[in-house]
Each structure stands twice: as structure tokens, then as C-alpha cells.
């Protein structure tokens, strides 16, 4: 949050720093899926691949089946399935979909600057 406040002064620099931090920070990720639908299976495979490739050794990944933990849907404000939540490092991000577009997943994980945005 502090980053955000200071952003106005030197946005570019801050962003570089954030990415640098991201390169060293521990990632805490949760993937919420709804049973074993094709989307779920795809998402699980995709996130594992991405983590191994970009966050090797500094990530924690939990895969949660919403059918088995329906209360979590409310608590975590889940509406879409699958949803990947980047709990740490902040800011919190939700990435919805089967995670097949790797570029966008990386943007969502703050591992790459968004191009079109």
C-alpha cells in the first residue's frame, strides 16, 4: 500500500522496484477450482508449469476444491471458477480462467508489465 501512495512521485522507478521485489519475494498462491471440470484440470496444469518456470523455489500453491469447501467461496469473494488468488506479495490479485494465456497470468502475478494496459 505504501508503494501506491508514493507512486505519484516517480512511477516508473517504483514499478521497477516492485518488479525487482517480485523477483525475490515469496509467492503465496491459492487456486480455487470447481471439481474436475476441464477448466479445473487445465488451470491446475497451467499454474504448476508457470510456477516451476518463473517462481521456482519461492512459491506456495494451494489448490482448493470449492465443492468441498463451499464456505470459502463467500469468504474469498469467489464467483468465477477457476480463480487464482495471489495472496502475497501484495497487492492482492485475482486471475480468473484456465490460466492458458501465460502472458496475462504473468501480468496478474506482477511478474511482467502489462503491454496493452
Amino acid at each position: 500500500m505504501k508503494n501506491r501512495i508514493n507512486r505519484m512521485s516517480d512511477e516508473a522507478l517504483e514499478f521497477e522496484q516492485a518488479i525487482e521485489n517480485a523477483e525475490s519475494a515469496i509467492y503465496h498462491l491459492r487456486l480455487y477450482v470447481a471439481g474436475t471440470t476441464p477448466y479445473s484440470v487445465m488451470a491446475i496444469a497451467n499454474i504448476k508449469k508457470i510456477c516451476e518456470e518463473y517462481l521456482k523455489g519461492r512459491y506456495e500453491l494451494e489448490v482448493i476444491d470449492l465443492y468441498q469447501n463451499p464456505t470459502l467461496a463467500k469468504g474469498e469473494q469467489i464467483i468465477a471458477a477457476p480463480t487464482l488468488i495471489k495472496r502475497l506479495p501484495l497487492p492482492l490479485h485475482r486471475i480468473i480462467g484456465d490460466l492458458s494465456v501465460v502472458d496475462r497470468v504473468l501480468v496478474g502475478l506482477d511478474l511482467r508489465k502489462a503491454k496493452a494496459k
Partner: protein
Amino acid sequence: MDKKKIASTIQTLPKSLTGIQGLDEITGGGIPKGRPTLVCGSAGCGKTLFAMEFLVHGAMMYNEPGVFLAFEESEKDLAVNVVSLGYDLDKLVADKKMVLDHVHVERKEIEETGEYDLEGLFIRLNYAIDSIGAKRVVLDTIETLFSGLPNPLILRSELRRLFQWLKEKGVTAIVTGERGEGTLTRQGLEEYVSDCVIVLDHRVTEQSSTRRLRIVKYRGSTHGTNEYPFIIEETGFSVLPITSIGQEHTVSSERISSGIPRLDTMLGSKGYYRGSIVLVSGTAGVGKSSLSACFSDAACARGEKVLYFALEESPRQIKRNMRSIGIDLEQWEKKGLLVFHAKRPTFYGLESYLTAMHKAVNDFKPMVVVIDPLSSFIIGTNQFEAKSMIMRMVDFLKINNISVFMTHLTTGVNDYTGIDISSLIDTWLLLRDIELGGERNRGMYILKSRGMAHSNQIREFKLTDHGVELLDVYVGPEGVLTGSSRITKEAKEKAEQLLRNQEIENKQLALDRKRKAINAQIDFLKAEFEAEEIETLKNIELNKLRENLLLQDRVDMAINRKGDIIIKTSKLHKPKGNDAKTK
């Protein structure tokens, strides 16, 4: 009411009562059970309240727990918003009669990668429904998802699936939607929810706002097709179909004085019924307010509490004016028996005014309510709303057995009320100007008075410094006269009567004189007769004596001549006779 209940059971389509005043009447028993209903309208028209009432009534009155899925407001905000209506959502949640769930979608937190569905929402909703065995579901406003999630195509197909799923689940759902340009909802939700569509509308015409409700569609059922005005009042949402007036209130046969003895006499000698609706209508300056003041004064004198809604004049002005006709309202105000409520309806808007009236009545608990004048509710062309509003109010007051005294300003002779509310009125007094002989006088008569034998006479209505007086009008061969014509006519009659009286007196005097003359004559004749009588009797006696004497002489003579005459009467030989002769 009973008939409607029967009708709704005959219908094959099962319905779910909303508990919203008036709506269940126009839908013939509520919204379709086990199906989704779309409630749409522009911002601030009451969609959320509508939906919330549906759930709260379900949970509290019909034993049907409900799930409120809010896409726009947090649970806390929802609960706070309805506290003013007396709904304790926290308690309902604690009692497992309701689940509130705020679905928060933040666009900037969301990154979309590839295919997905809304199974998360389904699971969430399913869990909420199953956790309390909910029968009712509200989705308010699901269209928010379109701004939160980037892919409308997925959303559309998922929404279709959602509504299908709700149907399969057998829950009665209300889906709210924001009104769009040229369509009922911005995202065309009416495509998916096709069983029942209700449109709410908030319109401002001639500076006064009215809310209206219309059932656009109700598959498989008849329904009222009009636009019905509705209001959001203290007790919540209330639709105003004209026919749904509750008529189950108790009726009092107690009579109360109108404050004018003569008027009481006209009203079957006893006055109005308690809890009845009295309307006084008339053109400007005929004394409508004075009549209300009289009634208020009489009620206060009986120790009853009076709530006076002054819609045009300020309380001070009313008090001053009424002092001039000898009515002191100030004393009652000081004693706390009389309370003025002076606000123009234009200040509030009809709806809020009704709410304010309800509140004032509930707070003060009066036995008499005066509304002076009713006509100020009509602003522009809102007659229909005004009528429904007045009806609701009158209904509310009647249920509480409060006597209502209303005045109404009319503009013409034939314009009785302007708002067609005559069916509501129990006793209707009409005040009117009678122009005659270059002056204007007030006349009053009873147009109708339910349940009592009332006078059919026109009375002249006079405001004096000691109150209101009702006088007989002059009714004679020249018609009905009032004011100075009546006084002149009466004076003329008086003079004529005087003249007649004098004549009679004269005749009586003449008669007396004649009687006296005759009596005198009779006396004279009597005296004359008496004199004659005495004279005659004297003569008779004399003659008799003379005859006796003659006879005696003859006898004596015969005795002297020793004649043998037969003495017929021994009487003559009595010694007495001899004595007399010897004398």
C-alpha cells in the same frame, strides 16, 4: 379479500406471496413460485427495498427463509438501510431465516486468462440456500457483474444457466436490474427472466414526484395491467390499487357533537359517528375552516386529542381567525389536546407527506384528525395519486377509529370534490354561497350522511363573534331567502301580522260594546216588566176584594130581607167575612 384468496387457489400457477401491501392483490397472490421474477427500474426507484421486503416478509410471515445476494451493497449497509422500516436483519440472520451475502467484484483486481465459468457463484449461492433451506432468493443487482468481469459472452451464457438452475432449485427468485436505454434492463436480463417482469418507475411531473409500478408480463396468470402508484412509507413498500382498501375495521356507533348544536340536530339530533369521515366542501370563504375549528373545539372540550393538519394557513393565523368568531383554540394547544401540523404537501411531496402524517398520527394518537384543506394535495395533474393517497390515509385513520374532518376547496357549483372520493365520505356537508338581493350569504346543507336520518333543509350559516350559528332560511311563496332579504321579508311579515292583530282587537272591542248595550236593554225591559207585573197583581187583588165585598153585600142584603138565596160558598159565611163586614 376472501374472494381473492379463493381465486388464487383456483389458479393452477402456484404463487408466492410477497407480503407487500397491494401487490399481492394486483398479481392475484404474489409472484410466480419457484421461478425468477425480474424487477427493474431506474436508480432510486426502490428495487432493493422491494426485494428486501419480499425476503423479510417471507422469513417473518410465511416461514420461507431467504438468501439476499447483494452485488452493490455490503451486508452492513443493507441492514442499516432497512432498520428504519423496523426490520432487524441481524436477528433474522442469527435465527437462520436469512443469509446476506455481498458479492464484491473489483475490476482492477481481476485478470482474465482463458476460459472460465461462474461456478464459484453457483456454489456460493447453493451453499447459502442449503444452509438455511431457503425458499426465496434475491439477486441485487446481478448486472453489476458486467462491469466487474471482462467477458460479456461468458457472463450471458452463465446467467442463462443461473436462472435455469434457480428454477431447478425450486426457489422463488427476484432479480433486480437497472433500467437501460430503450430496454427494460441495461444488459437485457428480460431475455433470461421471462416469467414475470415488474417495472418500477420514479417520475417527476410538475415538480411532484410519484412512484409507479407496472406488471409488464406475468406468464400464465392474469394480473392488473395498470400503472399503480406506490409509496415507500414508514411501514415500507406500499402499492395503491384502489380496490384493495381494507374494510375490516371496527365500526363505532358512538355519536360525537359537531360543535354546533343546530348542526347536531340536523344530523339526526346527535352529530357525527365516531370514526367517520366528514367532508366539508365549498367555494372560497364559505367558512370551511370555521367548521373544522368548531369541531376541534368541541372535541377538545370533551377531552379528546385533536391533530390539525393545516396545509395552507399557519397555525397562528388559524388561531387568530378563530378567536374572531369566539373559538379559543390556544387554550387546547396549551393543554396539549390540540396539535397543529403545518406543512405544505408541495414541501414534502405526496408520498413523504403521507409518511409524515402516519408518523404524526402514530406519535400523537389523536381521536380526531382535521385536514384543512384536502385540495392542496392536488398539484398539477396528480389527481389519481392524490386520490389513492387520500384513500390510504383515510383507510389508515379509519382502522384506528379516528374521526376525520376534511375540508375541500371547490371552484364551481357542480365541482363537489375535484378528487373523486365521494365513496369514502360518510358525512358530507356542503357550504355554498347564496347570492340574492345584492349580497352574498352562506348556506349549508347535508349532501349525505350515512347511517342516520338527517335533515334535508338548507340552513343559513352565520359566523358570529360567539361562534357558528345556523339559522332557518325563509321559505315562502317567493322561494328561499337568506340574509337581509330574509330579514326584510320577515319584517314585512311582522308588520302585516301587527295590522291583522289590531283588526282582531278592534272587532273584539266592538263585540264587547254591543254585548254591553244589549245587556243594558235587557235590564231595562226587565225593570219595566217587573213594574207592570206588580201593578197587574195589585189590580187583580183589588178586583178580588171588590168582588168579595159585593158578594158579602148581597148576602147581607138577603139576610136583611130574609131571602132564601142559596149560599154557594161556605167561605162567605165564615165569621171572618163577618168580621171584615163588621169592620
